């Protein structure tokens, strides 16, 4: 029996690479805290400032020049209308575009490649540009006017590329073996797409669409461009003038009276609740219908 050579001491000593390991980890933690810390401070500040002004009056009242009497009902309603319009227009158009690009378009044709590249680019165009386009083309060009419908159409333009990109990804995630299996049973292209590919990609499409919608609901700039006006003391209609919640908040912050600042914070809380609920629905859908291939 020969003794095993005694191992050298493993305690003590901090080689440089271990320090580096540690510093890097701390650096990443720091970055995370900057990002989330800022967000947390903003949220808490908004909550603390706005909490006292959150009331039934704010939800159901009409705007007023007196802070204590001011409500945001027309703005909240218009925001919900805008959201519904965006869903109504952007989902069918976006999903059909995505199906065309993924399932039908021949990539060897230059125009299809051009469309692909430009959809990516459109998703990156600042919303204000769409606002200018909307003002010139939708509000004045085809004469829709400064109404809820025009706002919905412009926000649809803003989010459409995002809906297309998200839908394409969901469609692309459906394995080709599913298509082949369906074709091998004598299904037509239409049946393969409609009965297999689309149902399998609905969770992804729904998630992407809702996230795009929550972006649309928070947009201010394009709506200011196309005339979401400040003072609307009546419930909005599809073809009537309107204001939207982000625009209302923006206008309250411009008031000199401190009480209006509080109202703005309270309005921001309402907007946050709307947007976060949408995101929660998106997360729920994604987890509920996640597929294992």
């Amino acid at each position, binding site marked *: 029996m020969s003794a095993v050579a005694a191992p050298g001491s493993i305690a003590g000593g901090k080689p440089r690479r271990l320090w580096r390991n540690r510093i890097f980890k701390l650096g990443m933690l720091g970055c995370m805290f900057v990002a989330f810390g800022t967000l947390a401070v903003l949220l808490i500040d908004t909550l603390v400032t706005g909490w006292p002004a959150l009331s039934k009056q704010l939800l159901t009242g009409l705007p007023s020049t007196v802070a204590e009497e001011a409500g945001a009902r027309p703005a909240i309603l218009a925001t919900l209308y805008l959201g519904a319009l965006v869903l109504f227009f952007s989902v069918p158009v976006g999903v059909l575009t995505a199906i065309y690009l993924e399932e039908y378009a021949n990539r060897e044709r230059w125009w299809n490649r051009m469309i692909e590249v430009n959809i990516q680019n459109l998703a990156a165009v600042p919303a204000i540009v769409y606002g200018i386009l909307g003002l010139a083309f939708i509000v004045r060009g085809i004469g829709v006017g400064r109404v809820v419908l025009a706002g919905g159409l412009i926000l649809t333009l803003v989010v459409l590329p995002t809906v297309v990109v998200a839908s394409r990804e969901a469609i692309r995630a459906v394995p080709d073996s*599913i298509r082949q299996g369906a074709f091998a049973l004598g299904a037509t292209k239409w*049946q393969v797409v409609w009965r297999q590919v689309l149902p399998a990609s609905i969770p992804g499409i729904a998630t992407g669409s809702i996230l795009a919608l929550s972006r649309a609901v928070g947009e201010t700039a394009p709506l200011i461009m196309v005339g979401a006006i400040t003072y609307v003391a009546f419930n909005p209609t599809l073809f009537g003038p309107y204001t939207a919640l982000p625009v209302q908040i923006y206008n309250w912050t411009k008031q000199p009276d401190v009480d209006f600042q509080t109202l703005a914070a309270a309005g921001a809380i309402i907007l946050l609740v709307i947007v976060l609920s949408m995101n929660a629905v998106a997360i729920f859908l994604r987890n509920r219908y996640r597929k294992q291939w």
Partner: protein
Amino acid sequence: MEAPRIDSGKIAEVSHGLERAEVESREKVFTVSDLGVAYSGNVALQDVNLEVHKNTVTAFIGPSGCGKSTFIRCFNRMNDLVPGAKVSGTVLYHGQDLYARDVDAVEIRRRIGMVFQKPNPFPKSIYDNVAFGPRVLGMGGSMDERVEQSLRQAALWDEVKDRLKDGALGLSGGQQQRLCIARALAVEPDVILMDEPASALDPISTTRIEDLMHELKRNYTIVIVTHNMQQAARVADMTAFFSVIVDDDGAGRRGILVEYDSTTKIFTTPSDKRTEDYVTGRFG
């Protein structure tokens, strides 16, 4: 020429094969003449001539890249779905040209079913998987009966009858593959093409699929691609051996049909040296 002598210890046992004369006395289902396939101008397979007969199992064997999977996809025009694929020559199905202008690939595929290498059940219930084909084809009759009958034929009914509404993706790999066979049977095809149907399965599941082929042969014509020679020997009546030829400059590789004969002949006294080398394990 003397038949090549093969060390009998190395060859697979041919267990169920029919005699060539018996096979050839049956009705011709497919007649392939001068068939070639090219992908974007690169020839993958050329000069294939063979016949497939009714109620038999025909196996295609050969090394990787010999074009056997490409070939089986010519029978239901699955190559149509590959951009740039071009098929030359003719494939007659009961005397009609599959590639004639007025023939619709969708019509072909309802008569000539296919089972793929990797089980590919739809992300739906077991029932809906089997019912999908009859539904898209608008077939009449009782769907419940059709589903049950197809699952029974695929030897899966007893295992799934109490959970037809459960998702198909929860089944084991072997069960999934039998579900895919049931799905193909549900549209009452004439021919079933199987592209390496057991290559992703464990030995027990493989045996079940092979037993199934013996059963199905009574009512259907079966064409199978396999890289497992023992499997071909166990299930096939006729076997076609494909090989690869490399161009002189080494740039192009294409598949050719080397020998087509009864399985017994291919595995005991092949006429071609290349077949002999392959089935005895000296090559490939």
